[in-house]
């Protein structure tokens, strides 16, 4: 099968997200799509999948011009897609999510649940996933959810498969598995479009590479091109891919976590006697496969984890048992793992988001009266210094691309007087240019003499950014090692094999 996009143009109001884009996906080929955050990659794929209607151009399928009125028609034509934002119903089980849209039924339209389970098991087996078909999707860690998405795309036996940033939330092992699967599919003769920000992956699997910037195709690249070349093609300038940091200037251990133990609502232990200390001027990375208690650790520090015991001390002051407000006021900067859910109010403007945790105090409020002028000055300054790409400080957060949203959160959290910075997966889903910037900001925070705790699933990020790396497994810290530790060793720790 050969799928051709010719001169696709898509506008949102006055804004042109795709401008005359051409793209070809051919059987037995993996075509990588590269571009910085907001370049228009997802938009193009959504047009291809019938979710958006193009304002210009055409889709040609095996030589025939085709119009998809909706995803249903695209599916029928043999197109499957793994969406960047999960298209999963959180309250449904894995099996229900997988069969949605093409449900096996018994008489009278009753669902054949056994058959659905069977289907999930079959696919899981074929691609080496281990997924309980009866688990409720919302309870699953995002990595597992991503697998469910992939199963959904595979089950329909599509000839063209679109993967929109599936690896942003996968662990390195999971990523490797997925690439294996993609190769397998390619060998079966499917056409694959693969979007990712991780150049290592591109170089590994791509047959063809198309780079788009600001809604336009800027050119083709070869898998053999260097990462630096790809990066600068995407961003339009030179990018330094290594984290540029001085050796740490360590101070006293002002942040101490001791014997932290927590239980989930269901009563299982999610944190098991976790203890560590972080010194001023040090980046302490917590690595590990997602779902091993990192979220709970971060939430315990912030004060929203229930049923937790032990001690968390910042400069001698106990944080455990305090309200969130109190913790934040003690000088904790907190970058949540899920920025859209916890970090931002999507319907607020950039300016409003910048005072989310300080709206009731100077300089943003005098008594209860907001000081909007001060806020706007502040926002203008941050927009510039953090290079937040938006029309103005009055743009709604939801209109920003993922990378720029993350910058808003960082700008807010880093501009307080911090005594501790806790950031979960600060660069998830960001393009190389934005990652570079975010890393610089984190290192700068460290260099200002505060302890920094980073929760990372990316090994590269963990080793490049960290001064020390702790690995969590099943709620425990199984080892604290230097960032120079070889990858394999770290991988073993993450799999629960103690050093």
């Amino acid at each position: 099968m050969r799928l051709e996009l010719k001169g696709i143009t898509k506008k949102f109001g006055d804004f042109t997200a795709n401008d005359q884009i051409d793209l070809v996906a051919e059987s037995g080929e993996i075509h990588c799509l590269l571009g910085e955050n907001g370049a228009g990659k997802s938009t193009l794929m959504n047009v291809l999948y019938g979710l958006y209607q193009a304002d210009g151009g055409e889709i040609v399928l095996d030589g025939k011009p085709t119009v998809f009125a909706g995803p249903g028609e695209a599916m029928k034509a043999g197109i499957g897609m793994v969406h960047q934002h999960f298209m999963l119903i959180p309250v449904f089980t894995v099996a229900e999510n997988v069969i949605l849209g093409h449900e096996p039924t018994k008489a009278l339209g009753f669902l054949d649940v056994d058959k659905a389970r069977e289907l999930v098991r079959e696919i899981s087996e074929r691609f080496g996933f281990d997924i309980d078909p009866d688990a409720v999707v919302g309870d699953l860690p995002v990595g597992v959810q991503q697998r469910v998405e992939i199963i959904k795309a595979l089950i329909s036996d599509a000839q063209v498969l679109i993967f929109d940033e599936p690896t942003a939330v996968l662990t390195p092992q999971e990523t490797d598995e997925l690439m294996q699967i993609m190769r397998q599919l390619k060998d079966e003769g499917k056409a694959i479009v693969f979007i990712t920000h991780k150049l290592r992956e591109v170089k590994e699997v791509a047959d063809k590479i198309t780079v788009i910037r600001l809604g336009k195709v800027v050119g083709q690249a070869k898998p053999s091109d260097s990462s630096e070349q790809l990066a600068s093609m995407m961003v339009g300038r030179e990018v330094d891919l290594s984290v540029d940091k001085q050796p740490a200037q360590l101070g006293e251990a002002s942040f101490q976590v001791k014997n932290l133990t927590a239980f989930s609502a269901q009563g299982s232990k999610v944190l098991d006697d976790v203890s560590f200390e972080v010194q001023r001027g040090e980046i302490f990375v917590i690595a590990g496969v997602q779902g091993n208690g990192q979220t709970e650790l971060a939430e315990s520090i912030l004060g929203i984890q229930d049923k937790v015991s032990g001690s968390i001390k910042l400069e001698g002051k106990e944080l455990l048992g305090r309200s969130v407000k109190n913790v934040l006021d003690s000088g904790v900067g907190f970058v949540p793992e899920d920025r859209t859910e916890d970090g931002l109010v999507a319907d607020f403007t950039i300016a409003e988001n910048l005072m989310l945790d300080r709206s009731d105090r100077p300089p943003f409020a005098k008594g209860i009266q907001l000081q909007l002028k001060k806020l706007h000055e502040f926002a203008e300054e941050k927009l510039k210094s953090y290079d937040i790409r938006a029309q103005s400080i009055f743009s709604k957060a939801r209109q920003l691309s993922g990378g720029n949203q993350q910058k808003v959160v960082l700008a807010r959290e880093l501009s307080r007087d911090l005594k501790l910075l806790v950031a979960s997966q600060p660069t998830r889903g960001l393009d190389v240019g934005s990652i570079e910037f975010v890393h610089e900001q984190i290192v700068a925070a460290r260099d200002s003499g505060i302890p920094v705790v980073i929760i990372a699933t990316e090994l590269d990020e963990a080793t490049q950014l960290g001064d020390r790396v702790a690995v969590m497994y099943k709620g425990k810290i199984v080892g604290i090692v230097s960032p120079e530790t070889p990858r394999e060793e770290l991988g073993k720790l993450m799999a629960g094999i103690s050093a």
Partner: protein
Amino acid sequence: MKQQNLVREIFSGNAVIPIFAVLASFLFGGILIAFANEEVQQASGYFFSRPGDTISAVLNSVFGAYDALFRGSIFNYQASSAEGMIKPLTETLAYATPITLAGLGLAVSFRSGLFNIGAQGQIIFGAMFAAYVGLSFELPFLIHMPMAVLAGLLGGALWGGLVGLLKATTGANEVVVTIMFNYVALLLLTYLLKTPVFQAPNQVNPISSPVAESSRLPGILGDGFRLHFGLIIMLAMVVAVWWLMHRSSIGYQFRALGYNPSAARTAGINIPLTYILVMAVSGGLAGMAGASQVLGADRQLTVGISATFGFDAITVALLGRNNPFGVLAAGILFGGLRSGAVLMQANQGVPVDIVLVVQSTIVLFIAAPPLVRSLFRLPKPKAVQA
């Protein structure tokens, strides 16, 4: 060419939508009015012999009715005195006062993500508290009146705040609780009006004595008019709510909660406390609507004190897009319909229920600009065209 553009500009703008919405719903209401009219019924009996009679009867009934609506709500050109001419507009504003106050309260809660449909009960509580202060004390006006108004605010705030408290502590759904609390408040009022707490001495009916002169909201335009100081309070509240929601840190936190509770929590906003505060502010404003009725309009407490203001307020709040100035506009629209309805009935014998029909169709049409556009074949505005 240019002129055509101007016309197009005007007709594609959002400002004309309400006008055409009102027009559309009047057409619809007109059908019912004609249907109910006796002359029309008679004339249609011999429609085929003299169709003109039916047509003129229809036109008479419909124009008569809407003329009466206009004269009853905006300007009575038939009145003998200048006073009489402007009186309808003042009546409209008098009705708009409680509806807008309660609507403001609901707008605050809707904006904050809480679906308070308990304005009805909160108005009753406000009215009871205000009436209690108005009946039980002898104080100078400058103390008594503000105290009674504040009591109304307090009553509504307590009854609303209780819902917030229940939600904050037990997670109880506010929709269910406010529906139930409306009934409880009404029953409590009915009971108390038969006890010495409120019932007037020497009175067998469930009516309180008029509240003390010193606690009343004084008339604005003098004796001939029902417009009272509540209007000023209401207008002040429009501005106050705007300030609260858009210029104060409290309102900012309310809105953050409404848009994204989990981000609000992560940012250190105290969610349970905010629930209680939102519901208290929301209930307090509805309570002031109750106070305005007891101290300004009715001057005594009756079982019907809350009328249907609490339900009207839901529509008014949402129709005004939860924006205080929008709520004011919607409140005046509802006030006008209430005020005009009476004359429509007295003058033309139009059944009162038609007003409900006209009122609801106006709201539906106003809320659905594309429908009005397609009905009247108005051009689309630019943004939508793109």
